[in-house]
C-alpha cells in the first residue's frame, strides 16, 4: 500500500529518468522533505532508486574575474610586445608583479626569449585559459582538465563539491494508482470523496498509546458476584452500623461475658455506653446465667448489663443478622449481609484490622443441619467451587457447627468460612420461631483464591498501576 505522497511522486515522474530532488519536487508539487521521505519508502518497495551524486562546480576568484575583464597578464604582455620590446617600458605599463607572472608563464611555454633586457617573441600563442575563464564565468565547466587544474593552481578558479540526490523511477505499480485516504474527515464524508478511493492500510501490529479503563475495583466485583448469588437464591439484603453494642455483638449470640474473644485484646471497644431495651435484656441475662427456658444450663455466674452496654466496632456481621432476626422472628426468613467488620489484629499479608464478611441466614420451621449443608453446597457451587466437603467446627453460637472446605486446584482442600444452626440459647430469648441456618466467610479469603492474591493489604491501599492492569475478568 502506498501513501498519498508516494502515489503523487510516482505519478509525476517518468520511468527511467533521473530527477534531482529539487526537480522532482517541482514536478510533483511536493515539498523536498516529502519527496525525500516518499522516495526512500518507494525504494524499499522496489519502485525507485535513490542515489546521491557529487558534482563539481567552479567559480572565478576575484583575480580570475579581473583577468577576465583586463586580460591575462601573459596575454597583455604579448599585446605590448607587439608594439615594443623594451622591458622597463613594459614594466611601467603592466606593473612589476604582473610582468613577473607573464614572463614566467611565457618562458615556461617557450613563447619568448630574453636577451639584454629585450624580449623576443618566438612563436605565436593562443590563450585557452582566457576562453576557459570565459566559459566558467558563464557556468559551463566543459574545459580540459589540465587547464582547469592550471587555473585552480593560479588561484583564478575555485573548485566546490555539490552533493545531489537523484531519484530514478524503476517501474510503476501494475494497478492503477489511485489516491488513498489517510484520515477520514468530515469533508471527505460530506463530499463522498471516499467513494472511489481506497483507505490507507495501517500497520495494525504497532501498539498504540495506553489508555486506562475506569472500572469497578476487582474486590467489589467479587462482592457483587456474592450479592448476585444471594439474590438469585431469594435472600433479603440487610445492613447495619459499624458501631454496635456489645449486647448485639456478643451477648445476644450467647458469648459469655468472660469469653476470650471479648477481650480488648481482640476487639476495638469504644469508651461509650448506651441504654438497652430492658425486656430484651432480661431474657438474655437469664439465658446466660441459668439457661432460662431454653433447656440449657447457661454459663452460670452473674451477667453484667454494663458490659452489654459498651459500644464496639462490630467483630462480625452476625451482630446484624441476630438483630434482624429479633425484629423478624417469624419464618420464613432468608437474609444476607456483606459488610465491613473489625478485629484488633496487627496488619500483615493475611490479617487486616478491618475486612469484609459475608453472611447468610435461613429461618424456617422444617429445616435442619442437612439443609444447611445443602445451602452451603449450592452457594459454593455458584461461587465456582464444585467440590465441597464438611468437617465439624466450633462457634459459640451454633450447634451443630461445621467448617466447609472447598477444593482448589494446586492448593487442595481449603477451609472457607464457618456455618451452623443457631443455638436455642441464641434464638429463644428473641422469640425466633424455627431453626436458623447460618453461614459466613471472609471475602478476603475468597479474594485471595479468586484473584490469586498473596497480600490482602493491596485491596485496601490500591496501587493505581495495579488497578489499571487488573483485568475486568481474571482468567
Amino acid at each position, binding site marked *: 500500500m502506498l501513501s498519498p505522497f508516494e502515489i503523487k511522486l510516482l505519478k509525476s515522474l517518468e520511468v527511467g529518468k533521473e530527477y534531482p530532488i529539487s526537480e522532482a519536487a517541482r514536478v510533483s508539487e511536493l515539498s523536498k522533505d516529502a519527496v525525500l521521505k516518499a522516495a526512500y519508502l518507494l525504494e524499499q518497495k522496489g519502485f525507485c532508486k535513490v542515489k546521491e551524486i557529487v558534482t563539481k562546480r567552479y567559480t572565478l576568484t576575484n583575480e580570475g574575474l579581473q583577468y577576465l575583464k583586463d586580460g591575462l597578464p601573459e596575454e597583455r604582455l604579448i599585446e605590448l610586445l607587439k608594439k615594443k620590446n623594451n622591458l622597463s617600458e613594459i614594466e611601467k605599463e603592466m606593473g612589476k608583479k604582473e610582468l613577473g607572472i607573464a614572463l614566467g608563464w611565457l618562458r615556461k611555454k617557450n613563447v619568448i626569449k630574453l636577451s639584454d633586457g629585450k624580449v623576443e617573441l618566438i612563436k605565436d600563442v593562443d590563450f585557452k585559459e582566457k576562453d576557459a575563464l570565459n566559459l566558467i564565468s558563464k557556468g559551463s565547466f566543459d574545459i580540459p582538465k589540465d587547464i582547469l587544474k592550471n587555473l585552480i593552481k593560479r588561484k583564478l578558479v575555485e573548485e566546490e563539491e555539490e552533493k545531489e540526490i537523484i531519484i530514478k523511477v524503476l517501474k510503476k505499480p501494475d494497478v492503477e494508482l489511485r489516491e488513498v485516504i489517510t484520515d477520514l474527515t468530515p469533508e471527505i464524508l460530506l463530499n463522498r470523496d471516499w467513494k472511489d478511493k481506497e483507505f490507507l492500510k495501517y500497520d495494525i501490529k504497532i501498539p498504540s498509546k495506553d489508555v*486506562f*479503563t*475506569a*472500572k*469497578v475495583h476487582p474486590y*467489589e466485583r467479587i462482592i457483587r458476584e456474592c*450479592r448476585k448469588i*444471594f*439474590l438469585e437464591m*431469594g435472600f433479603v*439484603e*440487610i*445492613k*447495619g*452500623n*459499624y*458501631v454496635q453494642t456489645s449486647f448485639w455483638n456478643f451477648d445476644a449470640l450467647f458469648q459469655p461475658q*468472660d469469653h*476470650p474473644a471479648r477481650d*480488648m485484646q481482640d476487639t*476495638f471497644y*469504644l*469508651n461509650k455506653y448506651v441504654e438497652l431495651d430492658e425486656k430484651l435484656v432480661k431474657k438474655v441475662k437469664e439465658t446466660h446465667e441459668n439457661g432460662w427456658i431454653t*433447656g440449657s444450663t447457661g454459663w*452460670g*455466674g452473674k451477667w453484667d448489663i454494663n458490659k452489654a452496654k459498651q*459500644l464496639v466496632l462490630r467483630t462480625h456481621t452476625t451482630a446484624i443478622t441476630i438483630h434482624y432476626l429479633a425484629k423478624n422472628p417469624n419464618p420464613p426468613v*432468608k437474609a444476607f449481609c456483606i459488610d*465491613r467488620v473489625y478485629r484488633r489484629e*496487627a496488619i500483615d499479608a493475611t490479617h*487486616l*484490622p*478491618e475486612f469484609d464478611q459475608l453472611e447468610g441466614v*435461613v429461618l*424456617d420451621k*422444617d*429445616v*435442619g*443441619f*442437612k439443609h444447611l*449443608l*445443602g*445451602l*452451603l453446597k449450592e452457594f459454593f457451587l455458584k461461587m465456582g467451587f464444585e467440590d465441597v466437603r*464438611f*468437617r465439624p*467446627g*466450633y462457634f459459640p453460637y451454633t*450447634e*451443630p457447627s*461445621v467448617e466447609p472446605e472447598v477444593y482448589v486446584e494446586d492448593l487442595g482442600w481449603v477451609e472457607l468460612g464457618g456455618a451452623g*444452626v443457631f443455638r*436455642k440459647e441464641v434464638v429463644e430469648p428473641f422469640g425466633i420461631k424455627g*431453626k436458623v*441456618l447460618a453461614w459466613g466467610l471472609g471475602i478476603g479469603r475468597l479474594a485471595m483464591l479468586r484473584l490469586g492474591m498473596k497480600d490482602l493489604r493491596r485491596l*485496601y*491501599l*490500591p496501587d*493505581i*498501576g495495579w488497578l489499571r492492569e487488573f483485568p475486568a475478568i481474571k482468567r
Partner: protein
Amino acid sequence: MPVVTLHWGELERMVGKSRDEILSKLPMLGCDIERIGDEHIDVEFFPNRPDLYSVEGVARALRGFLDIELGYKHYEVKEADWKIFVDESVLDVRPRIVGCVVRNLKIDDEVIRSLMEVQEDLHWTIGRNRRKMAIGVHDLSKINFPLCYKGVDKNFSFIPLDFDEVMTIEEIFKKHPKGKEYGFILEGKDRFPMIVDSKNEAISFPPIINAEKTRVTENTTDLFIDVTGFDENVDKALNIISTMLADRGGRLECVEIHYPSRVTKTPNLKAKEMEIEKNEVYSLLGFKLNDDEIKRALERMRFGVEVNDKIKVKIPPYRADIMHEWDIIEDIAIGYGYDRIEPEYPATNTIGSTHPWNEIRDLVKEIMIGLGFMEVITFTLTNERVQYEYLRRKAEGYTKLMHPLTTDHTIVRTDILPKLLELLSYNKHHIMPQKIFEVGDVVVNDVNKLRVAACITHSKANFNEIRSVVQAFMRELDLTWDVVESEDDAFIDGRRADIIVDEKKIGVFGEVHPEVLENFELTMPVVAFEIDLTETFDSGELL
C-alpha cells in the same frame, strides 16, 4: 484456641492404630491440623473440648471414633481419708477448691510433659488465664494431710517453686516470675488464698505458684492435685485431669472438702444423664436416623446410650461442653459422620431483595465510572492527623477507639476525601491524569453515612473541571441544587463551593488547598468533591 502437640509414638500406642488411619479420621472428629511432622503432629482443638487438650484425651476419643472401644468409660474413685478444710477467710477471695489423689503412676518425662501442657491449656481456656480456675500438681508423699485452704496476709512466707529462699507473698509479687505474671488476679486484695498442710507449711499459693517442697520429680509415684476457683469450672478441670491420669494407669482416690457449712467429695466422676426426644434429633439434623445409628454414633463419641422411646445418654465426666441437648445432637452428627450426611437444599421460599443503601452505591458507581473515574476502596480506620489536621479541618463527630493497636488507626473515618488524598500520595509515580472515586461508609456520631468522594489530579486540574463533574453527577441524580461559597479550609478560598439541596449542605467541591497537598506530599494540583448521599436518598433500615 490451644494447639496440642501429639507425639506419634505415644498417640499410636495409646490409640492402637497407625498414623495414616489416625490422620484420615482425625479432622472428622473436629479439629484443625496445623502441622504434620515426622515426630509429632500439631492439632488445634476447639475451645469447647478441653478434654482433648492431652494425648490421653485424644486417644480416648479416637478409640471411640475408630470403633476400637465404644461407649461410656467408667472411672473408679476410691474412698480415702484425704481432707481439706476450707476456712471462712478464703471464701470472698477464691471460694472453691477441689482435689484428687492419684496413686501408682509411673511418672516419666512423657507424663510430666503431658501434664504441664494440659495444665497450661486448661488455665488459658477454662481458667481464663487462671482467673476463673487454676490447677496445682504436687508430690503426695511430701504433704501432711489434712490440708487447710485459707486466706493469709501479705506477710505469709514460704519457699515458692523454682526458688531456694523463703519469700513473702509481697515478695513473690515483686520477684517471682509467676508472681509478676499473675499478680494482677489478686490485685487490691488484703487476703490471699493459701493451701497449707497439717504442719501449717504452704503447699500452694493459688492461682500463682506452688511451694517448692511438693515439686513433682521422676521419683514421684503418687500425686495430689488441687484446683481452685469460683464455680463448677474447677470440677470440669479436675475431671479432665484426673480421668487423663487414670488413663495413664493411675488409681484415683477422693478428697473430702470441708466447707464451713457443708462437705463434698471430689472428684465427682459420676455420669450426668440426659434424655433426648428422637424427634428433636430428626428435627435439628433434618433427617431420620434409626435407633441403632443413633446408639452407634453416640457410642463412638464415648457416651453411654440407651435408645427406647427416648434417647438416654450418660455424659462422660470429662465433657465440659454439654450445656444443652443440642450439644449431644451435634455429637450424634459427628459420630454418624458429617461426610455421610446427604446435603439437601432447603425448600424455604422467599423473595430476594437488595438493600437501598447498596442500590444507591451501585447507581453512584455507574455514574462515576461513566465519568471516567476508577473505583478504589480504602480502610475506614484512620487517625485524627490524616482526617483533620492534614485537611485543615476541625475534628467533629468521630468514633474513637479505646485501645488502638497503631497510631495509624485510632478513629473511624468521618470523611472519605482524606483517604483518597492519602491514596494519591502513594501513586504519584503512575501516569497522569489520575481520576479516582470511592463510594462507601463513613461513621458520624457512631452512625453510618453513605458518601461518595472523587479526586482528579494532573498538572492542569482546576475548578472548572471538577465543577463539570459535579454538574454531571447532580444531573444524573436529578437533583435541583445550588452552590454557596464554602468555608472548608481543605480547599482554596474562592475556588470552593458547598453543594446545597433543599437548603441543606450535602457536599463540597473545589481545588484542594496547596497546604493540604503539601501535607500529603502531593506535587500536582488536585480537585475533588465529596457528597453525602444519605441526606438526599432514602437509604433503608440500618440495624
